[in-house]
């Protein structure tokens, strides 16, 4: 497959018909991809590679204050070695942030993907009514900015304006404070689940649609019930999409920032260091500790990459094992 494509894209080798300007065309065809990739490469270098490199450089430096820190030359940047890293790794605030995000992720990822799979299977089932309308409704939150979503739910969590509290009040039931303690995790997770389910549902639904009908017909002839078809055929066949959505959900979870930041004005329980990324922001811009923030950022990026590659390798290994069987 690859070798044919190579031959096709470079011009037909040994073809009977020799084009007059063949060498020049060939040369142009050789340099063309580099020319086409120039904008992306340039933008990548300027806005991805350079900042990452700069962050790494900053993370190994620190500001040394001599005397009282007054006058020019009193604040000097010097080499810090691994000092910023040891500081960051022994920082309990960063660790607590990481644990909070871990707890949050343990709620968001299974619930969101479970709902996405459930809705996708329901959409794909026979004789379902109102499928186009409900599919659109469930996908709709994807169009709503995370900040606005957090804002809307934030108001729905506020006892003074929330319909839930109104109903609970009329029923004479206890009214939990959704913006504090354990319920805060649920409140934040709910925003992420609400915003992400539809997108993942569409990804899974699309791959369900790609399963050929003959497979179902064969299963039905064998007497399989719709539930059995869903569990034994559909779910295993969409496993690659599930892996993909799982992967992207984990990465999105690690990067949680907008929702807790937006809820912050509504409650005192969300600290400025609730998630590790919020701490990076606070240290860099609130405290002016750019070097410490850079070291934390590098650690988070490294952990993300490690997790991603570990995950992809595990998936690849399983696929190879299955192919070998």
């Amino acid at each position, binding site marked *: 497959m690859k070798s044919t494509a*190579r031959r*096709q*894209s470079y*011009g037909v080798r040994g073809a009977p018909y020799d*084009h007059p300007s063949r060498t020049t*065309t060939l040369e*142009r065809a050789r340099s*063309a*991809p580099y020319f*086409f990739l120039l*904008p*992306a490469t340039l933008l*990548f270098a300027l*806005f*991805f590679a*350079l*900042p*990452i490199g*700069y*962050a790494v450089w900053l993370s190994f430096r620190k500001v040394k204050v001599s005397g009282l820190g007054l006058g020019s030359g009193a604040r000097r940047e010097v080499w810090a070695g691994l000092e910023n890293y040891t500081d960051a790794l022994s920082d309990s605030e960063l660790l607590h942030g990481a644990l909070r995000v871990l707890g949050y992720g343990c709620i968001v990822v299974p619930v969101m993907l479970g709902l996405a799979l*459930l809705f996708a*299977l*329901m*959409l794909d089932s026979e004789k*379902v009514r*109102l499928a186009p*309308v*409900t599919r659109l*409704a469930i*996908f*709709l*939150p994807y*169009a*709503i*900015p995370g900040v*606005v979503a957090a*804002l*809307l739910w*934030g108001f729905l969590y506020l006892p*003074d*304006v929330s319909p839930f509290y109104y109903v609970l009040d009329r029923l004479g039931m206890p009214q939990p404070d959704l913006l504090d303690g354990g319920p805060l995790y649920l409140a934040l997770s709910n925003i992420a689940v*609400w915003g992400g389910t539809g997108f993942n549902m*569409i*990804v899974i639904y*699309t791959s369900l649609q*790609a399963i050929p009908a003959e497979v179902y017909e064969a299963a039905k002839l064998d007497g399989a019930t*719709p539930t059995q078809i869903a569990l034994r055929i559909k779910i295993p066949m969409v496993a690659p999409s599930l892996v993909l959505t799982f992967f992207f959900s984990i*990465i999105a979870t690690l990067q949680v*920032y907008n929702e807790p*930041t*937006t809820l912050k004005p509504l409650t005192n329980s969300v600290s400025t260091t609730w998630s590790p*990324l919020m701490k*990076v*922001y606070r240290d*860099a811009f609130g405290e002016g500790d750019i070097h410490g*923030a850079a070291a934390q*950022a590098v650690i*988070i*990026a490294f952990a*993300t990459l490690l997790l991603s590659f570990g995950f992809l390798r595990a998936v690849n290994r399983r696929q190879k094992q299955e192919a070998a069987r």
Partner: protein
Amino acid sequence: MSSLAVPQAEPRAGSTPGAAQDSRPPLRRRIALVPTVTLLLGALYCLLPVAWVVIAATKSGRELFSTFTFLPGTGFAANIRDLTAYRDGVYWQWMANSALYAGLGALLSTCVSAVSGYALAIYRFRGRETIFNVLLAGVLMPPVILAVPQYLLLAKADLTDSYLSVLLPQILFPYGVYLARIYAAAAVPTDVVEAGRMDGAGEWRIFTRIALPMMIPGMVTVFLFQFVAIWNNFLLPYIMLSDDERFPITLGLFTLLEQGANTPALYTLVITGAFLAVLPLVALFLVIQRFWSLDLLSGAVKS
């Protein structure tokens, strides 16, 4: 309930007229009901906050805290007037800014994605997979990790707090490049590129005149993705901008909410503002959802 109390009197009395004609076994009907109800519940959950904001936007400040949530109020026109009057219409400036960032940004970004995706799909050249993998690794970079040094570097170039500081870093979307590559590989046959070469067309001409028209449907999807991503972005402008004349709508609403926490009178402004901010994207969504190539969404293009 009462029909159940009379056993077997009218076997089909409780069922719907359409169901009475259904000769299939009752089990299958019941299973078709479960998916429909599940999907309706899901739709209800997803529409609830939207329905809430539509109704809450019609309430005056006093009604917001005193009347039942899902009862429409009387203050919608007044709320819009207040919002427009707030700081000489800065709200509409935010909307215009968002349209500019998202419109221009998505357009440029789609062009870059298209040309890169095409090159990665059609040509075989040294370093192809390396370039692709390095670009894709960009997806994994948490935005804060990029945005903090991006801010520091742009500050050195004296570009922070400008339109460019929000526009430029968002032109390259690794995910868009990935989608464009998949789409170009599926939509542009190499024979056609080869035929163009035989006729003596240059590589750039082949791309713009032959390949790009074939890629248009996929690029519409990429454009929409980038548009939504830029419109919804909060962190980058939050870090880059300090002058609220240049804020996009997400950042504007956030600052409004922050101030509103101290002055509840601003709550109605925040709610009305959130309602109006949701409208353009929902409208865009409804108009174009029929054009969305759902296959592309999951990266599962069939050739």
